[in-house]
């Protein structure tokens, strides 16, 4: 069925990419795209007067599907009991807050005006599981970032200085398991953890492999750049969740500065959920925010982008491929703990957590995230995330947006947090309030740009017709002084349009659509591709417990498979 033409009339349009900042104008939609104009007589007319018209939200980092999310679901029935969603005429039933079931995840995002969400950490061996869950996550365009930071082939190619083959291997992997971007989690540290070892600083060789985390980071960054992948290397740095770890974060960023080359303006590294990785202090008692150090670095360099991983005071679930971090966390909190190591590739850990205002460490975490958001000047470098569900649920995004836009909202909460933490914060001295456009940059325009999604994150002619309309009239609602009203308006979209179809009306899903799954198909030279395939065939049987042909995922398993073809420089 061809989606019907739509015209959105008299809305207040915000589109930072096209430098439209609150202009009253019409937006026309035809065939799933934004167009110059449509014939009004045959189009659905949406009266958007007194409302804002935005590109649909684009989430760069949210754990919504796959083996670890599912383990989280199985671990926490009590998490589900807090949110029970019955079936409706168009919606499947579901449950969950920090680890919602797949249908519910899709609906909740869509009702919040989000149209694209990327799942950021997947063991390649279990990608068929990830994809099968994403097939069941409606309403959204999706993609996955397979994990490479502790991959045996990667470490061996690096040790042998075979950089061309490494790049070709990365291309092979993305194509085989249908990944979109390259993710590193605690490079080297997870392999050590598989012997019970610890996370390592950048220059300590990985046990048995004789390469250092720094070599992995640099080697992979280079490979990603040479492959011309749509998104730069996405990294969860070493020493995450450790006092004083801001130094490792800065070292990580600086280790790839040269790779960016001079002034070409394209970032080569995305440091994710920085909040967990930029602490000062030397122990948990004197933990402090190291946001100023990170901000200074990011403000002075153009080769790096970040997302925040803001925490929200709530009962949530931490989950990461960083097994050793979760092991330490369970040791400290005594909470339930899941560990799931994956042969030749990666690990996984899950621990429920309750972030409390009264807790010194949690208050510092909350402050750290906000400081980083406010101290980095250029919003195009900062993506707003909660690292769902690690810092908080994605459904709390409007609350985080309100903190960014309202000093009043921040202050109200600052007054309630742990007093010792409060006494150590620079947060209260920060007067900056994000403009609405800046919030949109960090939730859609900027995220889409960093992900290489040229047709998303904006409302220009030719863009995908992924549109959110919110009941937000800036003549009546000032986010700075009435943050609650702003938050409420952003929580539920009046309309969400996905690929030119109205899928949400008055904050409720009215039509279920499957969305698509993107993956990167990077073309490397035939010779190199053959060499790598031969290498893999030799080692596959030894390294894995499945056959190579069964590891490769056939496109028939993917609903709306959408390869993104790029030409590599190898």
């Amino acid at each position: 069925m061809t989606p019907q033409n739509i015209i959105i009339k008299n809305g207040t349009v915000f589109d930072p990419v096209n430098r439209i900042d609150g202009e009253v104008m019409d937006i026309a939609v035809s065939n799933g795209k934004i167009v110059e104009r449509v014939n009004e007589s045959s189009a659905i007319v949406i009266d958007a007067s007194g409302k804002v018209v935005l590109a649909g939200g684009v989430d760069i980092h949210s754990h919504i599907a796959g083996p670890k999310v599912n383990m989280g679901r199985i671990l926490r029935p009590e998490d589900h009991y807090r949110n029970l969603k019955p079936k409706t005429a168009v919606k499947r039933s579901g449950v969950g807050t920090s680890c919602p079931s797949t249908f519910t995840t899709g609906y909740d995002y869509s009702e919040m005006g989000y149209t694209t969400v990327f799942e950021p950490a997947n063991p390649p061996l279990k990608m068929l599981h990830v994809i099968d869950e994403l097939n069941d996550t409606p309403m959204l365009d999706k993609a996955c970032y397979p994990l490479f930071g502790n991959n045996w082939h990667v470490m061996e190619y690096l040790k042998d200085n075979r950089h061309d083959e490494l790049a070709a291997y990365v291309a092979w992997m993305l194509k085989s398991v249908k990944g979109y971007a390259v993710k590193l989690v605690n490079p080297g540290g997870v392999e050590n953890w598989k012997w019970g070892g610890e996370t390592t600083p950048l220059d300590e060789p990985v046990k048995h492999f004789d390469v250092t985390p720094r070599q992995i980071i640099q080697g992979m960054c280079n490979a990603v750049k040479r492959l011309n992948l749509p998104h730069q290397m996405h990294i969860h740095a070493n020493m995450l969740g450790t006092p004083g770890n801001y130094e490792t974060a800065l070292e990580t960023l600086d280790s790839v500065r040269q790779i960016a080359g001079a002034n070409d303006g394209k970032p080569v590294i995305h440091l994710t959920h920085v909040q967990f990785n930029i602490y000062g202090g030397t122990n948990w008692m004197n933990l402090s925010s190291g946001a100023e150090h990170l901000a200074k670095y990011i403000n002075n360099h153009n080769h790096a982008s970040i997302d925040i991983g803001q925490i929200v005071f709530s009962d949530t679930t931490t989950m990461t491929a960083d097994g050793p971090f979760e092991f330490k966390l369970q040791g400290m909190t005594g909470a339930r703990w899941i560990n799931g190591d994956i042969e030749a590739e990666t690990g996984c850990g899950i621990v429920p957590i309750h972030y409390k205002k009264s807790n010194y460490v949690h208050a510092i975490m909350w402050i750290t995230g906000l400081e980083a958001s406010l101290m980095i000047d250029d919003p195009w470098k900062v993506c707003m995330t909660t690292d769902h569900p690690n810092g908080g649920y994605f459904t709390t995004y409007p609350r985080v947006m309100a903190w960014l836009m309202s000093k009043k909202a921040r202050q109200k909460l600052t007054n309630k947090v742990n007093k010792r933490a409060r006494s150590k914060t620079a947060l209260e001295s920060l007067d900056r309030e994000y403009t609405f456009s800046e919030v949109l940059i960090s939730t859609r325009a900027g995220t889409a740009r960093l992900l290489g999604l040229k047709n998303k994150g904006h409302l220009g002619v030719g863009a995908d017709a992924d549109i959110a309309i919110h009941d937000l009239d800036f003549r009546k609602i000032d986010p700075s002084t009435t943050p609650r009203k702003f938050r409420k308006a952003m929580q539920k979209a009046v309309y969400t349009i996905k690929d030119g179809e109205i899928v949400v009306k008055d904050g409720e899903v009215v039509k279920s659509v499957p969305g698509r799954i993107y993956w990167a198909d990077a073309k490397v030279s035939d010779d190199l591709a053959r060499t790598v395939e031969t290498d893999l065939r030799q080692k596959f049987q030894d390294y894995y417990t499945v056959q190579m042909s069964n590891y490769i995922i056939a496109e028939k398993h993917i609903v709306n498979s959408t390869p993104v073809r790029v030409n590599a420089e190898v």
Partner: protein
Amino acid sequence: MQTYQDVVCTVCGCLCDDIEVDVDGNKVMKARNACAMGTSKFLSYTHDRIETPMVRKNGSTQPANLDEAVTKVAEMLVNAKYPAIYGLALSSCEAVKVAIELTEEVGGVMDNQSVVCHGPGVLGLHEIGVSTCSLGEIKHRADLIICWGCNPDEAHPRHFERYSYTAKGRWRNGKADRKLVVVDVRQTSTARKADKFVQIDQGKDYELVNALRTALRNEQIQQEKVAGVPVEDIEELAELLRNAEFGVILFGLGVTQTVGKGRNIDGLFSLTRDLNKYTKFQIMPARGHFNVNGVNEVSAWQTGFPYGIDFSHGYPWYNPGETTVTDIVRRGENDAMLVIASDPIAHFPKDLANRIRKSPLAAIDPVHSVTTLVADVVIPSAFAGIECEGIAYRMDGVALPLKKVVEPSQGVLSDEDILKKILGKVRELKGRSG
């Protein structure tokens, strides 16, 4: 003659995916690399098949066409107040998805074989969590393998060779580099191969687990024997566990379905957690039916819960002890049941089986069983992984694509397609009445 490579065997939770199947015409001639159980399934899948749909008319079941049978099942589900849909551990995940949608549509209970096998392990998981891994981790690193209440030698014949005791891994060259310990009530064939066999009194697993945890903490055990095992042996075993470089506990029905059930498993999960303070330790259930893990996984991501899911309120609800199929049958609340490739009438306790028989019963199955014998409607289905494709989940959660190597008999559909037809009919009937 055609040879299919890398075929996944659909018997146990090992899902060995290196089977080579020779097919001539539409007949499987040979299945190389498979164990005895796998070979037998590939070569004798044509035996004992249900030939045609059957529907009960005037007291006895009679051959019917598929549409008639589908309509009967749909009517049965629509007319019931609290129907149960049960089974699926031998179906593909695609079939599971349709079964969930169907159960949601009719507001019933959806359950799978976990309730009578590894369900207690899930309860342990809610309480403690679990430290586990993919099978390759065991192959590469394990120097100590504990089989607790499981007998892989008979139930998972290729487990040792492919994934554990005798497998050649990166840092372990087969059994020369590993120790095998078996904890069981009897000397199984696995126990006979073990470096150490710990014979334990029936129903005393929980006691032994706790004694081990005590010994591990270097605390004094006051008895001379616990669970029939001398304290010196327990202390020695604790030392062995502590000194392993990488240990793994594989457990089976011998511990999940004996006295203590879920408590045994939360004990074992706690023991594993304790051990990680000293060394690296993992634990994994040795799942029986080839896709019982897949039913749990798909159920969890679509509904939040792995088994025993009640849709009677419109949303998924889960409370084992209240919402599993055995719970509702025991309370006499269930008033219709659709069974997919399972045999509850044979396997459930007799009083439960009798209660199931009191209300309308339908069965989808490739082969005859006690359940199909007494059911009011029977629909023959194709074997997933032989006659139709699909996805299944290995015991460690690795998803694998099942192959179709032969055509099913004319008119015989996959579970997925049969369930889709039933769902369609249910919606048609509900539309008419609503």
